[in-house]
């Protein structure tokens, strides 16, 4: 009898792995199998024989699971929140409550300044919101992860200190309104703080390369979820506008004063929660996009290089084009990072890796051209915050891409494994954080807040 139980247990686990066959179906089939086995045993067969015949009569599992899939096609689409809600596990519901609480907290936080006369729709208060945008959002996301990962008190203090320094810098420094140091600080602060959130995400173990890579994966998925939520929010707003217009009411104050700001900050935490909940349920999206866009960006860069060679024209350094180049290079590094994050390190080098190397080399060449142009501009017109920031960013990216190219070449030449590439990228992450922090804190001091 004991052996039979074991066999049925194994059979159950085996059937359960089929996506189209759910737990309730397995229970039903198991009842069938047990009835059959009992009948066969009663007619004189041994437990072993009865089990084998019973399983055989149920039919081949592939065919069976196809039949179930035909009847329940929806099961092939993995469900995210619904499936978890059914489970009604205590872990999920508490996490949900905490995350929603923090999302509401962020929504409230952005409305609090209004009590002190700083309305978000007010032109005069724009400067205030501009400086503090990050602080309405990221502390809540950090708190969510710090809570979820059980960060130790020292970790909480450290995070609080980082955010406090940020708040001080942004509010005590006498920035020139609309000055370039302020704009740079505004752009770089979220970058520095996002990596601080990573410390909470890793539960304090931010030195671990695996945790860093997980945070990179999280960031990509988070971004995609946030964009999706934003698109949904857009539809909601347009609908609200129209429906109230039809009865002669103007819903603009509601949208601009409440739904947009509160929704935008709350969605940051909600997207974080969704990515956490789904990480094992659904295929990651960022690597899929990477696969799609790596060839396209390689083509773009090749076309650009070919054109500059043919026409012999150098890069015309204006602020817009410089920003454009920085964005392009950041995208390339992102593509590289996500391709690496999703790759099975054990697999042998293939076509896609060669394509990655081509992309990296093209980006290096373009980056060198951009660097040259920036240096020429600096030597002709002197230092400005924007030029130094662009120079620094390009140098950081050039170092990353250069060493990545070397590592990729070694990997393709089968002289090294894939692991060094992965480690190089994760080891490099703090460089971005430090540079962003320098731009936020040191630049204003050096350039006298202009």
């Amino acid at each position, binding site marked *: 009898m004991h052996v039979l139980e074991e066999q049925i247990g194994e059979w159950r686990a085996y059937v359960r792995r089929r996506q189209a066959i759910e737990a309730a*179906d397995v229970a*039903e*089939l198991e*009842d069938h199998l047990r009835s059959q086995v009992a009948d066969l045993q009663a007619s004189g067969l041994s437990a072993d024989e009865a089990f084998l015949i019973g399983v055989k009569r*149920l*039919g081949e599992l592939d065919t069976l699971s196809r*039949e179930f899939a*035909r*009847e329940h096609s929806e099961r092939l689409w993995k469900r995210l929140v619904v499936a978890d809600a059914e489970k009604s596990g205590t872990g999920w519901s508490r996490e949900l409550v905490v995350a929603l609480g923090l999302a509401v907290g962020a929504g409230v936080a952005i409305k609090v300044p209004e009590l002190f006369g700083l309305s978000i729709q007010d032109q005069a208060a724009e400067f205030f919101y501009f400086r503090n945008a990050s602080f309405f959002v990221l502390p809540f996301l950090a708190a969510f992860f710090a809570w979820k990962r059980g960060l130790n008190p020292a970790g909480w203090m450290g995070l609080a200190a980082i955010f406090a320094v940020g708040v001080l810098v942004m509010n005590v420094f006498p920035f020139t309104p609309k000055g370039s140091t302020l704009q740079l600080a505004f752009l770089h602060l979220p970058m520095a703080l996002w990596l601080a959130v990573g410390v909470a995400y890793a539960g304090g173990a931010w030195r671990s390369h695996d945790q860093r890579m997980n945070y990179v994966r999280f960031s990509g998925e988070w971004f995609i979820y946030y964009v999706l939520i934003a698109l949904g929010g857009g539809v909601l707003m347009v609908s609200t506008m129209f429906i109230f217009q039809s009865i002669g009411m103007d819903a603009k104050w509601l949208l601009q004063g409440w739904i947009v700001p509160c929704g935008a900050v709350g969605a940051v935490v909600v997207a974080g929660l969704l990515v956490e909940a789904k990480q094992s349920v659904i295929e990651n999206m960022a690597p899929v996009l990477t696969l799609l866009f790596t060839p396209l960006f390689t083509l773009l860069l090749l076309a650009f290089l070919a054109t500059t060679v043919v026409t012999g024209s150098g890069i015309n350094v204006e602020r817009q084009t410089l920003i454009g180049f920085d964005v392009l290079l950041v995208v390339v590094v992102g593509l590289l990072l996500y391709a690496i994050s999703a790759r099975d390190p054990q697999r042998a080098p293939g076509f896609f890796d060669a394509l990655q190397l081509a992309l990296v080399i093209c980006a290096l060449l373009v980056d060198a051209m951009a660097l040259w142009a920036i240096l020429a501009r600096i030597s002709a017109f002197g230092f400005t915050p924007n030029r130094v920031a662009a120079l620094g960013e390009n140098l950081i990216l050039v170092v990353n891409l250069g060493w990545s190219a070397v590592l990729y070449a070694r990997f393709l030449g089968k002289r090294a494994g894939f692991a060094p590439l992965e480690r190089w990228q994760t080891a490099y992450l703090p460089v971005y954080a430090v540079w962003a922090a320098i731009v936020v804190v040191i630049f204003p001091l050096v350039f006298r807040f202009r």
Partner: protein
Amino acid sequence: MDIGKDLVAASATPLVLAILREGESYGYAIIKRVEELSGGELQWTDGMLYPVLHRLERNALVKANWGESESGRRRKYYRLTDKGSEELANQRRQWQIVNKALRATSFTSFQLAPQAI
């Protein structure tokens, strides 16, 4: 004898509905009843019954609920709904038409060829 796959599939719905008309039942018992009714000639792959039952349930022809077997195991019981009774009557008319048409041909009366050939 082996009955063709298409015919098995086509006859499954009326058979299951007709068996459930005799009273509430569950998967294994339905299979047993089919064997019994056909004198062991009609044998289904047991597992295939369940997707059929689930389809009938989705179309509200049968209603399912979880109960317990004699030995206290969880067991899913099915019973015919009013809509299921209607469908059964509908199916009966269809089978009668097919049956009548076949009888009108030489289908039921022609001499079966000797097995030896």
